[in-house]
């Protein structure tokens, strides 16, 4: 196969990053964290809406309906990860990512066990309500979700 190599030119970004002025990395990160922290309340609203969307998505009543319903669930789960990630709500992210892993690996033309969506929605609600110090309860919830996902992933091959 023919390979054409374009020697890399120094990008504008490379030239400007070391130019005079700017801020220290410590200050840049502190500013970024403060900016993001200002969005926490809105992020929690987005997380709540995403869980509501999971709870409200009805199971498909026919096989042709399955891909659209799975897309709805996938979209809700990824919007939850988008919003929860910057605030280090890793338990919520992991639970949502597990659901995405399964949907991503599933043939949308095949029936999907909708109990998995229901269990994830309930678990996300529980994780959201548990205080941060409930480490063991959180770990148990995630472990059982993980077990479900692994079993189903094994079935999808």
């Amino acid at each position: 196969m023919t390979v054409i190599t374009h020697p890399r030119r120094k990008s504008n970004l490379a030239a400007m990053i070391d130019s005079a002025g700017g801020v220290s990395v410590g200050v840049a990160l502190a500013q970024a964290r403060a900016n993001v922290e200002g969005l926490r309340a809105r992020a929690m609203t987005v997380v709540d809406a995403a869980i509501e969307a999971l709870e409200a998505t009805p199971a498909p009543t026919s096989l042709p309906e399955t891909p659209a319903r799975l897309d709805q669930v996938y979209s809700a789960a990824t919007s939850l990860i988008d919003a929860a990630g910057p605030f280090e709500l890793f338990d919520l992210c992991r639970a949502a990512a597990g659901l995405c892993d399964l949907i991503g690996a599933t043939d949308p033309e095949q029936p999907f066990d909708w109990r998995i969506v229901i269990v994830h929605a309930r678990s996300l609600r529980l994780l959201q309500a548990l205080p941060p110090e409930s480490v063991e309860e959180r770990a148990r919830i995630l472990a059982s979700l993980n077990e479900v996902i692994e079993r189903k992933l094994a079935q999808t091959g």
Partner: protein
Amino acid sequence: MSALGEALRKSAVINLSGAVTMVVDDSPFALELTSQSLMGFGIRPRHTCLDAAEAMEILKEQNVDLLVVDCDMPGIDGFELVRWLRRSGLDPNAFVPVIMTAAHIRRPRVAEARDCGASFIITKPFSSATLLERIVWVARDSRPFLEVGDYFGPDRRFRTGPPPQEERRADLIRKKEFEERQAETAPAGESD
């Protein structure tokens, strides 16, 4: 901060204030989260787009220094946008550093993620520190661009050394869980 490399020690000074940056994400809230992080770094995003089509129109007309794109978007997704850009013949935009972000990548799309020509893909959840590390990394990225078959983008082969930074947090969590499971299932006689 322990994950930061030497180039990103707290006292290091970076100047990104002049970087003409475009952020593309179909989620207005995710777009704002990314923009707020960038503004903390001193980057004021010049172009924020809610869809790839709008981004394409701007990229045809104006040069950018950094592109941050969400992978999963309705219509033209992030992978298609980056593949189009690399093949567009737009100079210098076709060679611009591109960071892609993803809440999740579906298994059948992993190959697309690898082959679209992005400089780096980061999966969520990621911190502001990770985003800044990647921006500095792509700024200093010295890989040549290759045209191989359908691929046009930075050389995907990393020639020397370990990955440029530590693994992302989610990988570390999974690795720890895996090691714990292994330890639990290991026969007692095998332990030291």
